[in-house]
Structures are given as C-alpha cells and as structure tokens.
C-alpha cells in the first residue's frame, strides 16, 4: 500500500532524535555537534547557511566536528563556500557532493579539492538559480541557518543581514525538513519576526556574534585616476543618454568611483533626478554622498554592510526597514529586482574575450558566480517597458516594428585595460575554458555571456555592442577599447575608425571628456573618513578600513 507521509514521519523521527539535547527548542552550544549527529542522516541534502556576507559559523564548526562514521556523504546545497570548515567537510569525508553559488576566499582551495576529486561537483549556480532549485530538485532536508536573536518560541530576528534566510527556511520547513538556527542571543521578545517560530525546530545560542564580511566597502582612498576616467565615461556616455534610473552596481572600484562622482561630476552634467535614483544594491558606503545629496530615492538590498546599520536606520525613506527601524534585506527578492526591475547592470570583471564573454575564473581559482550573472543578463521574461530598455532594444534591432521589439537590459562591463598587477583585461581565450577542460565541465564558468553584454567601458573609450551588426564588428569594437593589450594591438585600424565614425566606439574626446580632468579631487569623498563625515558620523567603518 502506498504511504503518502514518509517525509513527515522522517521529520518527526529526526525531531525525536534531537529532542534529548533540547529544552523546548533551545540546545546548548556544547551539544551542537551531538544534535547534528542525531538529526542529520548520511546522504542528506544539507544547507549550511552562508553567502558572500553572513556565515552560520558556529554551525559550520559543529558540523565539521561530527563523527564521520555516523554522518557521511552529505550533499551540501548552499550559497557560499567561504569558511575553511565548509571545505573541511569534504576533506574529512563528511560531505561528498556540492551545489553552490559563491566561493570568494576559498576559491583556490576549492579548485584543489575539485582537481583532487574530493568534491563531487553538481554545479556552480547564481544565487537566484540555487534558491530556485531549493524548490524543485535540491530541497534541503536539514537547514543550518543564522540569525541575530530568537525568543523562546523560536521566532527569529535576522537583523539587517536577513539575506538568504527566508528563501532557505521556506523551502526546508514546508517540505518536511529540519531547521536549526544559531543566534547571537535568546531574548524574551525579538525586535521583529523575520522567521516565524513554527518554521524553526532548534535554536542554539552562540557565545560570539556570527561573522559578516564587509565585502561591499571600497576605500575611496584607493580609487585611481584611470578608474575615475572610466567612471566619467560611463556617466556621460551611458547613464546620461539612456536616462538610467533603475540599476545595480558591482562591487569594484570603477563603480565605487561612479557612486562618488554622482554628486560632483553628475551634478555638473545636470543629471540629478534624471539618473541613478532607484537601486537594487547593498548599502555601499560609497553611495552615502549621493544619498546625502538627494540623488537616491530608494535602495533595496541583498544584505546589509558592516558599519552601515545606524546610517540605514536614520534614512528609512531610502532603505527598506522594518517596524523596529532596522534594515530588512532579502537576497532572493533583491536578485529578482535586479533581474526584472533594473534597466542596467554595471560591474567590473577580470577577463573579457573577443566575443565579449567575461569571467572572474582563473586557471587555479574557482570563485563561483554569486549574483553577477543574474544581474548581468537580459531578462527574457520581462514585459514592462521603460525608456532605457526600449532605447537599447531599438539600437540592437532598428528594423523590427517597435511594438514587437524586445527591449534590452543595459549590461555594462567596466574596467582598465590592464588590471591589478598589470594583468590584461582582454584575452583571446578565457581561462575559464582551461578550467572547464581540466575539470571536464560541460559548461565553462562564464560570468556574463557576450550576447548579454551591451557596452564595454575602458579608459580608451566606450564600445557599444548593441550597434554591432556582425561578429567582425563586435570583435573590433572590443579590440578598439582594449588599449595596449595584445587584443587591443591586434585591431584593424581602419575598421576601428569606421566603428568610431558610426558611434559604436566613442573616445573620451568624442564625449567631450578631457582625460586630464580625471582627478581624485573630483571624488565626493576621498577617504573612509570623508564617508563618515558625509554620514553625519552615523557610518561606523570596521577597523580594517580606518586610518584614524
């Protein structure tokens, strides 16, 4: 006879196995590993929460300490492989299979474990894609999550770093999984309920606050004049003519420079109120001057940023805050916003090839994707019009009837022709291809596909790929802004000149920009301290960014 409640009964037996370690839902920190050994079964799909920002670090340590005779062959389905413990699980044989999205600091070690066969790789995803699979074929059986505080019923307050938690818990709790939360403290009443208590099975109080990486803080002191030039080109050559109001920025220094030029250079161009008003963006400290100058109407965030909490609390008209006054972020919704409701993504990358494909993978590092491919791609399901979207669509396909023409999201890659340590940005072939061969992957890890890219900005100018009519033009539009890299020197001068005459390539002088004007004095803030001043002393930068 068919039974229809196997998963429910399994869930009840897991809860019973964990019960001896709990008083109500509360489990002592010292019993964390014993609880996990009781609740988790070999071969389970487990989500250990962590992304490019917050980390369930206590639970990561506890899981890495389980007896591998009892718990083994786990299938980890999680946003980030970031903490050393995340990879220890594979070295120790506790976990075997991995589906993930992002691995910043562990990119080198994860590559080694992949080469060594210690990790059986499912796929590298974007955040949104992995969340989607939580609801289809990668639903966690156990989720190990992190929040700021819990009450006795297990109601969770995530604080400003809500991030992935709602997406993980929704999938796990409603498909008969077990949810275990680490919290900084247990309180009588949580400031607001981010996760209802009846979705949470066990709560462990940590003895120190969970780790959050200040990934989105860029020190204005490190912005170069070349980056300022690329930012001027982007503002005058893309933001202004398309009238881009809804957008997302990457985390690089070029886009930080744009944020810091809005109140100075942007103001001078008369763009205030006309561009960059609505954002899907983490609370970048470098956005403070633009916010304070009245440029920014609204910001929805994937996560928070270390040190920005008091500032955000004091600017509720701009940010999404809860009834308690603090930020409520949400990675899944902000990714959706970036995909469907933004007209532009602009970000930097490490390599761009002749087709415009870009990647941050190098031969011995597997950094993952995070959210960039989702931000940096055209949403084929989008149906609502907007001026920049329609204009980009028209440039790409001028001959189709307007009412049947798709718009296009502006996907802009920005960088210097020679990046960090004088490594060329432009290459004949992406290192991602070498990696794919080495690991026998079906797909090379491409961050942004060439057919999604609309513009490339370097100090040599802007290439508008929407206006290219064939592969040869596209290749030369790219070579034409690739400077003195090998790719740039491989250009056909005549063809590049023709492209420039058609406005496919635009040099700084074509836009009326004098490169000598690209001066650090143009930045609204030139140091972290300046940002603190702009914020009215509300921004409290972490120690590693202070020079006072």
């Amino acid at each position, binding site marked *: 006879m068919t039974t229809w409640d196997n998963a429910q009964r399994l869930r009840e037996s897991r809860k019973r196995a964990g019960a001896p370690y709990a008083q109500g839902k509360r489990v002592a920190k010292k019993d964390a590993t014993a609880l996990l050994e009781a609740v988790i079964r070999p071969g389970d799909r487990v989500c250990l929460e962590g992304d490019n920002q917050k980390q369930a670090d206590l639970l990561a340590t506890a899981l890495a300490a389980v007896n591998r005779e009892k718990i083994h062959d786990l299938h980890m389905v999680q946003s980030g492989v970031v903490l050393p413990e995340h990879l220890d699980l594979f070295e120790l044989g506790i976990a075997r299979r991995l589906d993930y999205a992002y691995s910043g600091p562990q990119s080198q070690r994860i590559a080694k474990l992949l080469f060594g066969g210690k990790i059986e790789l499912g796929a590298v995803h974007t955040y949104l894609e992995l969340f989607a699979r939580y609801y289809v074929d990668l639903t966690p059986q156990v989720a190990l999550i992190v929040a700021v505080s819990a009450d006795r019923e297990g109601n969770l307050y995530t604080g400003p770093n809500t991030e992935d938690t709602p997406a993980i818990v929704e999938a796990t709790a409603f498909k008969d999984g077990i949810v275990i939360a680490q919290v900084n403290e247990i309180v009588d009443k949580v400031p607001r309920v981010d996760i209802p208590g009846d979705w949470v099975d066990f709560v462990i109080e940590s003895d120190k606050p969970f780790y959050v990486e200040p990934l989105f803080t860029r020190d204005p002191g490190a912005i170069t004049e070349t980056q300022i030039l690329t930012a001027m080109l982007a503002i005058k050559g893309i933001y202004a003519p398309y009238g881009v109001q809804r957008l997302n920025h990457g985390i690089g220094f070029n886009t930080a420079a744009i944020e810091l030029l809005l109140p100075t250079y942007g103001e001078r161009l008369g763009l205030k109120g006309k561009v960059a008003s609505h954002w899907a963006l983490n609370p970048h400290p470098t956005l403070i001057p633009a916010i304070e100058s009245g440029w920014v109407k609204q910001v929805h965030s994937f996560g928070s940023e270390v040190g920005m909490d008091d500032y955000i609390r004091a600017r509720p008209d701009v940010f999404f805050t809860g009834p308690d006054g603090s930020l409520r972020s949400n990675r899944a919704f902000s990714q959706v916003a970036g995909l469907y409701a933004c007209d532009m993504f602009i970000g930097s990358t490490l390599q761009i090839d002749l087709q415009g494909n870009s990647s941050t993978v190098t031969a011995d590092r597997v950094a993952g994707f995070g959210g960039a491919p989702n931000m940096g791609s055209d949403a084929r399901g989008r149906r609502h019009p907007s001026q920049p979207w329609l204009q980009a669509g028209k440039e790409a396909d001028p001959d189709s009837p307007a009412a049947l023409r798709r718009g296009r999201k502006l996907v802009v890659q920005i960088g210097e022709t020679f990046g960090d340590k004088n490594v060329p940005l432009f290459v004949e072939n992406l290192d991602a291809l070498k990696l794919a061969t080495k690991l026998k992957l079906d797909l090379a890890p491409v961050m942004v596909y060439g057919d999604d890219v609309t513009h490339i900005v370097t100090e040599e100018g802007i290439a508008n790929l929407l206006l290219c009519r064939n592969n040869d033009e596209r290749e030369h539009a790219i070579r034409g802004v690739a400077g003195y890299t090998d790719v740039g020197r491989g250009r056909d001068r005549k063809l590049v000149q023709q492209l420039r005459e058609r406005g496919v390539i635009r040099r700084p002088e074509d836009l009326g920009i004098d490169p000598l004007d690209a001066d*650090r*004095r143009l930045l609204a803030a*030139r*140091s972290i*301290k300046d940002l*603190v*001043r702009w914020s009215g*002393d509300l921004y409290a930068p972490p*120690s*590693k*960014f*202070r*020079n*006072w």
Partner: protein
Amino acid sequence: MIAVVSETSKDHDDASVSTSSWYEASARQRVEHLLDANSFNEFIGPEWRETSPHLPLFDLPEQFDDGMIVGYGRLGGKPVLVAAQEGRFMGGAFGEIHGAKLTGLLRAARDMASVPVLILFDTGGVRLQEANAGELAIAEIMRALIEARLVGVPVVGLVGGRAGCYGGGGLIAGCCSALAVSEQGRISVSGPEVIETNRGVEEFDSKDRALVWRTMGGKHRRLIGGAEVFADDTMASFRDAARYLIEHAPSMSLSTLESEQSRLAQRIERFGHCSDAVDIWRSLGAAEPENLPALHYREFAALANDLQEPRHDAR
C-alpha cells in the same frame, strides 16, 4: 646653477588651496601650496635627470627627481629651504640620490646659518634596493640636520602623507626641531608589517588599521608629545603649522639633549605599563579615550591642548 621651475596648476586659487587635502596631494602640489605663490625655486630639478643608479639593476622604473624635491622659496614673505618626498614613487623611500639631495640642502642650511628648513616627510624608510647607500644617506642626513640645528637653524618636519614617516624617516623626524602631524600622518621606525612579520600577529596585527593609527598615527603622536602641532589635513593648516613652528623652534644644545633624555625617561615611567594607546590616553585624563579617534580636527586639537601641552624635543 639653480633651475627655476614654474609649475602651472589650475587650482592655484585661494579657495582650493585652503581646502585641498595634504594627504591626497603630490609632493610638488604640497610644496607649491605650502609656500608663497610662485616663490619656489628647485635645486637639481627633474630636468637634470639625476636618477637612481641602483634601480635599473632591478629593472625598476626611475623618476627624474628620484622622489625628492629640494629648493628654496618664501613662506609668509620670509626665505625657507624646503625638501619634499614623493610618497607615490617607491613609497617615498630613501635612496642614494634621494638622500643626497636632502643632505645637500641641510648642509647649505648649515652654511647659511639663517634660513629655516622644512622637511615634508612621506616615506616608508630606506629603499631596499639601495640598502647600504640608503642607510648611509640616513646617517648623513641626521648629521647634517644636527649640524644645522647647532648653528641655530630651525628644522621643521611636516608629516601627513600617504606613506607616513617610517624607518630612517622616523629617525630623521626625531632629530628635527619640531614636528607637525595630521591625523592621517604616521610616525614610527618599524612599520606595522615589519613588526607583525618579526613578532607575530598577536604582537601587532598590521591589518587592523585602527590599531595602526592609534599606535603610530598623528593623534597619538600629538598626545604623547611626539609632535608639537596637530594639523588639519589641508594645505592651509600645514602652512600655518610650519610658520608657527619656525617661530617657536627650540634651540639645540647639550642641555636640550639632557632635558629630552629626562622627558623620555618620565614617559616610559608613566606609560610603560600600558598595553594599548587607549590606556595611555586614559591615564592622560581623556574622559572617553575610546572615542578619541573619531573626534574631528577642532575638537581633538582643543582636547589635546587641554590634556597635554606640547613638549618639544622628546619624541
């Protein structure tokens, strides 16, 4: 044999001079805005191409002024000799030519015996590629500096650049008649990375920038008497500080050294047990020492004057 350099810069109007950042500026911009307008004359300017003989051996780029600008000009109408290090070239490090230019300037000051010297420090110390030549340069500079001071020449150091004032630069600063430092400025001998490398991250975490600044930064140096004047990070503030310190520079004699020795002994007695700069500030009587790094220029300058009168000579 004097090369006259006429620098043209588009922001030489008064408003931008008073607000532009010392920390951000190049060595040439600092010299230009520190001195009276159009008064600077450079010795051995870049057109002489006196470049380092050592750097090409390492296939490293040279700079025509070797990162050191020396010359004379006027400050408030009075003549001064000036040396400025370019922190953006080799971290402002001392090499053979770089050092020789400063030695020469100080010897000229000694011989003239009447014109004060300003040293605009911005250095990580000795250039490793020129190890011995650089170390010798530091020794020669210190000797020349003391000789100049002994004949009554005030030698004033200004510290507020990106590279700070480290290594041999810290030693030379210690020989000056007086120092002005901004919040961004750092003065020390061993740098944070050097300490961490030799003594471990538990001893000193060089990545903890707040720790670096509260241990070596301008505010702390001002509070423990390591610098006489706390300057704001503007051209105008450093200009005011330079004029003030030239007027008030102490003389140099055996008794100066003796009183310096006793002040240093008092300092170690008073603060030797402290394990962090915050402890020192607390024992100096600061009400909320942990908030001190966040104070703005004016608040801090006032507080520093309340807590401790500047005590020259003991750095």
